[in-house]
């Protein structure tokens, strides 16, 4: 993996951000009316939409779990979301991300309350400029809330990493491709419980611990926006 030298110039990143600064966040619920719940989430140019269908009956019947609800997730990138057209259909990366997103959401749900049923969470990436999986988790978490599904807490997610020797938050695609390390992170913010953690790169234990704290702090910022959006939603409803 090659790394470009100059991702940080005069203490600022190529898009003008400070190392610990998130890109502009945009969130919106109720974007897919045919779903039980849905939300859109942007980190800068990264656009993720999530929708939730269910809890609903699961077929064929022999897949049903008599004690719990099956949570299924699908992460998918639109063919036009990246520089080189992505051919449609799942690849190995999206298979893995679908799994880790499901596991990032599962601890917040009361799945045992809906035996024999399924909850389906679909995440579509319309534009991919880094941090797509964490954008997808944020959108999915809002979509679950939008669907009125009981949750222990929202799930807030962000990416952090090391570029040109500096620890930064919310990596763009360019930063990610040229990073020394990048880390995806999700947590239940009010419970301070981590539900997603993936890293690749080379880090000392000390750097890693610093990054984890940075990730936690950034998730708390994301969480504030999530809560605000949901509050507005309920205001609208009232």
């Amino acid at each position, binding site marked *: 993996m090659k790394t470009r030298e100059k991702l940080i110039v005069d203490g600022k990143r190529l898009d003008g951000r400070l190392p610990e600064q998130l890109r502009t966040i945009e969130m919106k619920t109720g974007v897919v*009316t*045919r*779903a039980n719940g849905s939300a859109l989430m942007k980190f800068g140019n990264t656009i993720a939409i999530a929708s939730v269908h269910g809890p609903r009956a699961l077929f064929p019947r022999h897949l049903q779990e008599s004690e719990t609800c099956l949570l299924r997730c699908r992460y998918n990138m*639109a*063919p*036009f979301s990246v520089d*080189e*057209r992505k051919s449609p259909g799942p690849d190995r990366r999206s298979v893995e991300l679908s799994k880790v997103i499901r596991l990032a959401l599962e601890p917040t749900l009361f799945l045992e309350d809906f035996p024999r049923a399924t909850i*389906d969470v679909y995440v579509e990436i319309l534009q*991919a400029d880094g941090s797509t999986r964490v954008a997808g988790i944020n959108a999915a978490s809002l979509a679950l809330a939008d669907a009125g599904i009981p949750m222990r807490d929202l799930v807030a997610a962000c990416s952090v990493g090391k570029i040109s020797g500096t620890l930064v938050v919310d990596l763009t695609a360019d930063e990610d491709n040229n990073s020394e390390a990048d880390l995806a992170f999700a947590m239940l913010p009010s419970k301070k419980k981590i539900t997603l953690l993936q890293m690749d790169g080379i880090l000392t234990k000390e750097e890693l611990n610093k990054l984890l704290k940075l990730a936690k702090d950034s998730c708390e910022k994301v969480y504030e926006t999530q809560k605000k959006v949901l509050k507005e939603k309920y205001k609208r409803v009232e």
Partner: protein
Amino acid sequence: MEELYTLELIEKGKRVDKRRFDEFRKVEIKEGIIKKAEGSASVRIGETEVTAGVKLDFGKPFPDSPEEGMLIVNAEFTPLASPDFESGPPGEDAVELARIVDRGIRESNCIELEKLCIAPAEKVWSVFVDIHIINHQGNLLDASALASLVALLNTKIPKLEDDKILRGEFERNLPVVFKPINITVCKAGNSLLVDPSFEEEKILGAKLSVCVRDDDRVCALQKQGNKELSLEDIEKMIDVAIEKSKEIRSLIR
């Protein structure tokens, strides 16, 4: 229940959402929303929402048209957009929709494909139009055809350097010379209606999709649904579509 109500209303000449039979829901067009794509558009017709993105890439031309660019239209009915859509490879509805949109663009000669040659018989531009359904509240075809057309209209051809594509730098616009508009007309009792909602589509089994070019010529037809039509129905439906196509075409910048 809801279906019965929708049907009764239609028989009285009314629609659940109070529209006239020849009236579209509100059409909203947004352009250039996907910066990673060479062209893109989002179209909302009422609550139905479709995003189309255009990517350009190298292709090898067909032997019998060695100087012509290629057009590939693909639609994904992601399960995000509707509880009726399933994961997996495109089903027959998605394939049919993509092929109808493709025919409208291709048969109207909307894109000057002969201007997309890079090296004759060796390398031409392939124009990939990808249709992504965001929300399915009826009339996906008209929305998809419109989103694809608008995306093509704002598509730019990337610069080349040493035979490589410089993504994000552009040389010229994609040469688009016609604006084919697809209008789906449904038979509702003895009347015809346009822009069916999801609920209306479920109960109206006789539909005709008509693609009309700027010069009022028809460039593609597809009967849809499991009910039959008479020759007179078809003639009237084509008249309605030609008329309506002008109105929708006028919404494009």
